[in-house]
């Protein structure tokens, strides 16, 4: 608005200093002796003054019209909120205010016409791009080789958004051609349009942000809801499990299966990727793995992974996703832990009095190949034996310099806390990564199961 006023003021001042027609070049008027000539001169001067006055009045009215038009435009545009809606409204108003046949507004990839189907978009794009590159107004009147057939005149004005030219306003077929006041008005509209589009974009961004946050909150709730609410009670095991979802939820999950006819099974998985889709896929994988663990005859960890892979391979292929998974089955009669590992890391085992070591996977993650490659392995699990299954949110946690926590530190901390109860070990590990990241955002879910043999 400011620059509209400045332009207007400048023009008025120019009118003020226009010299009278009959002034001599030096500035002092020359008066002829003859009275009739003098009379004529006076008349002529009077006429000139009247014309000046008329012109000034016209300009004043024009300025007032311009201000009024801008006020109307601002007031009416404020009620439109989406970028598309704002563009459509501005195109309609620009057409009306400039008495053109139609207008085109374009911002980034979006182009809006009023009336619709006014001109071929590809043709228009050429002019709009040219105007954006020129960074100033482009006015063409027929006959002009660059004008498309049937178009009498065209005026294109660049639009500044957030300090850069990111759009253009095109006015088409002004009856009688574009006059200087038309151009002034059009420039003012283009300027206003920039401000309104900025507003609409800001609103859209805020809305998108809020929507994303809501979706994330839902995904987080779903994820936490699907985790077990109680821990299984086995007399010879001390068990603790927890999952800390990141702000941008990942696809971590864990589950315990306790059926009366079979020994305790535990499952921990990490779906590739993050966000709502990972949380949804996590629900699917958890269901398949849980069903296999509950109902598969003679289920072993490897057969559970194989069944889960068979059930989910096609769906995971369509979704471009996979899941690393670790499944273990406790055998209380022999003090053994049987496990199978489909590409999951880190899994840490520590024999009583021994050193913590990584249990490396043999099979690819679930959903990568049509058949599972994971086999069953057995660990001695007497009192004092320790199994810590975590997700990569631990080893990939980064400090403010970007250094990763890594596997070595994780192993060292497991050794350090190994004599503590399961819950204390878990707290120890969480506080170790919290200390390491020193407030740096948690980028991925951090999930763990700690299982310890007890007498």
């Amino acid at each position, binding site marked *: 608005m400011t620059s509209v006023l400045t332009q207007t003021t400048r023009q008025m001042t120019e009118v003020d200093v226009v010299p009278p027609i009959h002034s001599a070049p030096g500035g002092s008027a020359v008066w002829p002796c003859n009275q009739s000539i003098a009379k004529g001169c006076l008349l002529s001067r009077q006429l000139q003054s009247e014309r000046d006055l008329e012109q000034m009045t016209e300009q004043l009215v024009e300025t007032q019209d311009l201000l009024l038009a801008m006020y109307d435009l601002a007031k009416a545009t404020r009620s439109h909120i989406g970028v598309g809606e704002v563009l459509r409204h501005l195109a309609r108003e620009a057409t009306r205010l400039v008495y053109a046949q139609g207008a085109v507004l374009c911002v980034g990839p979006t182009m809006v016409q009023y009336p619709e189907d006014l001109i071929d978009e590809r043709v228009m794009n050429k002019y709009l791009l040219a105007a954006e590159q020129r960074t100033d107004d482009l006015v063409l009147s027929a006959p002009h080789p660059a004008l498309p057939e049937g178009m009498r005149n065209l005026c294109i004005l660049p639009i500044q958004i957030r300090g850069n030219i990111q759009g253009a306003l095109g006015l088409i077929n002004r009856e009688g051609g574009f006059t200087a006041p038309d151009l002034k008005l059009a420039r003012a509209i283009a300027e206003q349009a920039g401000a309104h589009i900025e507003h609409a974009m800001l609103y859209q961004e805020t809305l998108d942000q809020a929507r994303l946050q809501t979706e994330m909150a839902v995904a987080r709730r779903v994820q936490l809801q699907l985790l077990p609410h109680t821990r299984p009670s086995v007399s010879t095991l001390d068990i603790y499990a927890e999952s800390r979802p990141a702000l941008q939820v990942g696809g971590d999950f864990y589950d315990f299966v306790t059926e009366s006819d079979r020994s305790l099974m535990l499952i921990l998985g*990490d779906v*590739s*990727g*993050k966000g709502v889709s990972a949380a949804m896929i996590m629900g699917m994988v958890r269901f398949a793995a849980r069903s296999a663990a509950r109902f598969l005859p003679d289920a072993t960890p490897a057969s559970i992974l194989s069944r889960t892979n068979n059930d989910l391979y096609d769906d995971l*292929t369509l979704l*471009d*996703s*996979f899941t*690393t998974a670790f499944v273990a089955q406790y055998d209380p009669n022999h003090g053994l832990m049987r496990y199978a590992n*489909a*590409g*999951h*890391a*880190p899994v840490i085992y520590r024999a009583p009095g021994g050193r913590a070591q990584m249990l*490396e*996977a*043999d*099979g*690819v*993650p679930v*959903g*990568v*190949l049509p058949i599972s*490659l994971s086999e069953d392995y057995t660990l001695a699990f007497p009192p004092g034996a320790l199994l810590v299954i975590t997700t*990569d949110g631990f080893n*990939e946690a980064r400090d403010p310099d970007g250094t990763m926590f890594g596997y070595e530190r994780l192993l060292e901390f497991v050794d350090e806390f190994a004599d503590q109860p399961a819950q204390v070990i878990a707290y120890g590990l969480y506080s170790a990564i919290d200390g390491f990241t020193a407030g740096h955002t948690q980028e991925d879910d951090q999930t763990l199961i700690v299982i310890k043999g007890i007498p």
Partner: protein
Amino acid sequence: MALNTRSIGNVGVLDLHGRFDAHMAPAVIEWYGRLPSPHVVINLTDVTFIDSSALAALAGGMKRCRQRDGDLRLCALQQPVRVIFELTRMNRAFEIFATEAEAISSFTH
């Protein structure tokens, strides 16, 4: 994200740089849709880190190529990237070569 792609014979080659993660994965998946042939080599020489979204994108490409009787092969893994492939056992799913030349010639032998 602009991808640096080349063609050597009937093998499409993709060069990736820096962190290969959730930000880059969609562009790679989108590239699969424009593949002229199902024979692909992804050169990871300049990739310093790879996350699960990236592994999923690679697995997705490998499956698409194998469905069309081709393959997606990898070459020139840096140590930190190689470790991820070994831990997740994704090295059992992909054919991985030390150099790009070996990966490309593997399609003709």
